[in-house]
């Protein structure tokens, strides 16, 4: 048999295998594969110099590095907005989580009055909230959809990222192992 004549069937089989594997992973609903992996994982977290929201719920003009508010412990950075439905959905879980780990909120393209209503209605799990109104911080963090949650190690490195609504399962399966690895 001539090797040249086997080439077509070879290419065909390769193509079919690739498609089949890919389709099967789609069928299994592999969540991780639908997300865009973040290249920032393992790198130092970008700056978080934003206009913070102070307790009286009016924006203070002076920007400050929100990362300073947490020292020597892992924390979460949650990009959210009062207008986003999944953010409302994940709010109860974040409230519960806020007892275990400090969470810094970045309000993406939001208004302080609407944010106040949001926080009143859904609770305020954040130790600090900053406004990212030009979306630049979001770009620096590689955020492509709201909500997105980052886990920062005590050395200031991003060790995990989840795009989309954060749930108990995501936290347990993605973030807790990362923290454990960090401690080790």
């Amino acid at each position, binding site marked *: 048999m*001539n090797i040249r*004549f086997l080439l*077509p069937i070879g290419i*065909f089989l390769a193509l079919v295998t690739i*498609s089949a594997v890919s*389709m099967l992973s*789609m069928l299994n609903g592999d969540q991780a594969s639908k997300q865009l992996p973040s290249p920032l994982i393992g790198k130092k977290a970008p700056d978080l110099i934003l206009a913070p929201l102070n307790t009286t719920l009016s924006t203070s003009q002076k920007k400050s590095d929100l990362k300073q508010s947490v020292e020597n412990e892992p924390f979460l950075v949650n990009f959210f907005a009062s207008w986003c439905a999944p953010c409302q959905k994940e709010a109860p879980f974040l409230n519960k989580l806020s007892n275990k780990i400090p969470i810094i909120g970045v309000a993406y393209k939001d208004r302080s009055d609407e944010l106040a209503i949001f926080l009143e209605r859904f609770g305020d799990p954040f130790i600090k909230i900053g406004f990212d109104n030009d979306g630049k911080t979001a770009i620096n963090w590689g955020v492509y959809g709201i909500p997105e949650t980052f886990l920062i190690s005590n050395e200031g490195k991003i060790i995990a990222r989840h795009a989309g609504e954060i749930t108990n399962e995501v936290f347990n399966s993605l973030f807790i192992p990362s923290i454990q690895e960090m401690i080790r």
Partner: protein
Amino acid sequence: MIVELGHFCLVLAFVLSLSQSVFPIFASNSNFKQLHSITLRMSLLNAFCVALSFMSLIWAFIVSDFSVSLVAEHSHSSKPMIYKISGTWGNHEGSLLMWILILSIFGAGLALTQKTMPISQKSLILGIQGSIGSAFLAFSLFTSNPFKRLSNIPLNGNGLNPVLQDIGLALHPPTLYVGYVGLSLAFSFAVAALLTNSFDKNWARYMRVWVQIAWCALTLGIGLGSWWAYYELGWGGWWFWDPVENASLMPWLAATALLHSVIVVEQREQLKSWTVLLAIIGFSLSLLGTFIVRSGLLTSVHSFASDPTRGLFILGILIISIGPPLILFAIRGPKLKTDGPLVLVSRETALIANNFLLICAAIVVLIGTFYPIALEVATGIKITVGPPYFDATFNPIMGLLLIIIGIGPFMIWRQGLTPKAKHIWTISVGISLLTTFIFIQANTSLSIGALAGISTVTWLGATIICGLVIKVRTLKRNSKSDFWQRLIRLQWGMWVAHFGIVIFLIGALGESVFKNESVARMHIGEEIQIGAEKAKLKSIFTRAGSNYEALVATLYIFDGQDNHIGTLYPEKRIYPVERQTTTEAGIRHELTHDYYAVLGDGNQTDGYTIRLYRKPFVSWIWFGIILMASGAAVSALTKFNNHKKSLKALQS
């Protein structure tokens, strides 16, 4: 009643297809030679049943029978009648049925025509068609049944995606499917040739007509799709290198190669195994296209409701219908090989080069489309292969092909050039250089790629026109009374199609190199500059459509001297049933350029975002495509005529 009748007809068609696919095997291995002619009749009956079934589905859409799940999901009683009808194939199940219908019509077409073909061969080909048909009928009946009924009958349907409520849906899929499915006949010819171990010039002659028909439809279908995207999607582009577009481009490239290689078999009995392989590849790429569109494997702006389970089924069909033929090819292919003598300067060589470049282009598109998936499966790395990649790889290959198009027709079979070929080339190179020089003088900011494009296209256009002129002149000099007869016998199909490419390229180059774009937030009465012209937002009003509300902008276009030269009406439509908005571009076609306006968000106080384009020669893209398709049609028609004439001559 009618719906259930349609359902039964579909089942009947399935059983008929199954028997149609086994009869020829019985027939060749037994004494029941009559089974061959039964297979022929069966394919007619099959087409009749599927047609009846398809009609009854259309009927269900027309009368809005919401007891049919498909109608309830994709139609609405308030929809205009034309979109009720075209909505029949605006969804997975309905379009699959249309696919099957066209497949069976092609089968019936073969059974009715080409009477000179040996009946055993014909029935074998129809048998292979039948087996493809039964696979797809099983797919339709058992996983995507269009006739599924609801026990809880809703009072009204969900409506149809507004983007699909367009004349484009009525035309584009049927045409494209004729192209896709037409390739199945070439495939069946090829597999039958492998099975019977016979592939000669007659076989090629029979096959070529079908390839031409399929190619013609495929070209038109792709053209219609790109035209639809141009005016409907509202980005002003006509080709996006989107996976779904690539899925239709790949079979087109393979079919184009096949169209040419089959000529070599017909004329010289060379490239036999290659042609067989191309026929198989062509159809498998069209199946692959079906797979990509329906599986959701690749994200695309065009694909409709995708479903991984369906994707796996189509993948299954792909494996069982393409795998065995390729294995058969690996075994039998070498035997088909005929090593005739080959000379560098000959028509054969040009056609081989053509095939080679087309297949290279198809492989590049295939790699570009599948590489991200393969890489992710293998390494987990996610990358994007977008237009820049295809521009950088596909375009140079196509540039080389253009040179072959300019050279090939002036070469003759076996060895040598047509008379005056060298003169023609010299003239056209001269014209091309001159034109390029003028362009450089006029505008220094043109990129190398654009200049290369301009010079190649002028050169190609010049060779074709000079070549034709010289051909006609020599014909006139050499012939006396029979000039017109001989004139008709020129290969007009080829010349028209090749000239279509030139027209197409002028459009494509004009659009990509010289287009103008302006975007602004405009209040009523404000003006915006576009090229040398101005556009003025005259008014914004609302209009009630048949099943939508529209916000319409009136945009007056003025030329440099402030003369009113035309008005654009871009729209934003709101479809209450589907709760969607669509944008309808306002387009004014002129021979040398289009004005194209899109109405964006806005309100009276802040103004409206208006996006305005001036696209030189953009309609030439579709003129060119129509010319290419008519070239193939002319060629196919003359073939059929010749057949008929010689048949008559035989009978008398």
